[in-house]
């Protein structure tokens, strides 16, 4: 057994067990921490497959920014295991069975897939110089459009998250002044 295989199995075990921890833990803060661990394990897989740029972006963007945003929102709402809404046993069982059926169906369909040999020698396609060349030669338009997407998401988040009471109280104050 090579080092690659050992690392693959260890990282896979961490990823799957932490993913189970995300959906099974009662406390939402624990779920977020388990999800961060899952993302670190997936980043380890990326490093294993010579996708160093994506591994770093995965850690910075997902584990660093997005999950901290989740954590902030959970702590802002003061959620804990006591106020955690729970589905009935029957609905939970139905969820597990339907997820399991999806797993079995896709498993049956990919069971006969041809096993492509992994080339375990190190390549440089995942390095930032190569990815940057591809990004700015072939994907310039999607890159620019994604900046518009970010702008609209930013404006949307601000518009949605704005308090509506602020406007009504301001208009009430103005009416009060005009009286």
């Amino acid at each position: 057994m090579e080092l690659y295989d050992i690392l693959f199995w260890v990282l896979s075990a961490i990823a799957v067990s932490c993913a189970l921890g995300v959906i099974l833990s009662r406390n939402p803060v624990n779920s977020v921490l388990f999800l961060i661990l899952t993302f670190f394990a997936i980043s380890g897989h990326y490093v294993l497959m010579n996708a160093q740029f994506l591994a770093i972006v995965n850690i910075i963007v997902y584990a660093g920014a997005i999950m901290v945003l989740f954590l902030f929102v959970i702590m802002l709402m003061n959620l804990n295991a006591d106020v955690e809404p729970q589905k009935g046993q029957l609905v939970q069982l139905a969820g597990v069975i339907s997820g399991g059926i999806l797993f079995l169906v896709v498993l049956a369909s990919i069971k006969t897939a041809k096993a492509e040999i992994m080339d375990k020698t190190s390549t440089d396609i995942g390095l930032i110089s190569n990815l940057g060349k591809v990004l700015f030669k072939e994907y310039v338009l999607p890159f620019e459009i994604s900046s518009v997407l970010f702008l609209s998401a930013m404006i949307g988040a601000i518009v949605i998250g704005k308090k509506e009471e602020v406007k009504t109280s301001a208009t009430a104050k103005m009416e009060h002044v005009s009286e």
Partner: protein
Amino acid sequence: MPVNSTHYLFLSLLLFSIGVMGALMRRNAIIIFMCIELMLNAVNLLLVAFSKIYADANAQLFVFFIMVVAAAEVAVGLAIIVMMYRKVHSVDINILNRLKH
């Protein structure tokens, strides 16, 4: 048995199924949102694996764009959840199934 493409197919299928199970099992809107992130990451892992097998950089660019879209999605989705919490003081999705307040 050395690691080949089938192992990565099984791993990402397992992670994706766990994400689907979580989205169906839980009632907390934030946990459901996190399960969606888990599903996106399972797909990303498979794309990177096939990028390695076929020595193709395009798949890694796709992963990059998926991360971009996921970041935008999280910003808007969490704003919606915060607004919902402000209105009904709960993140239970069963409160929202009547399409009225």
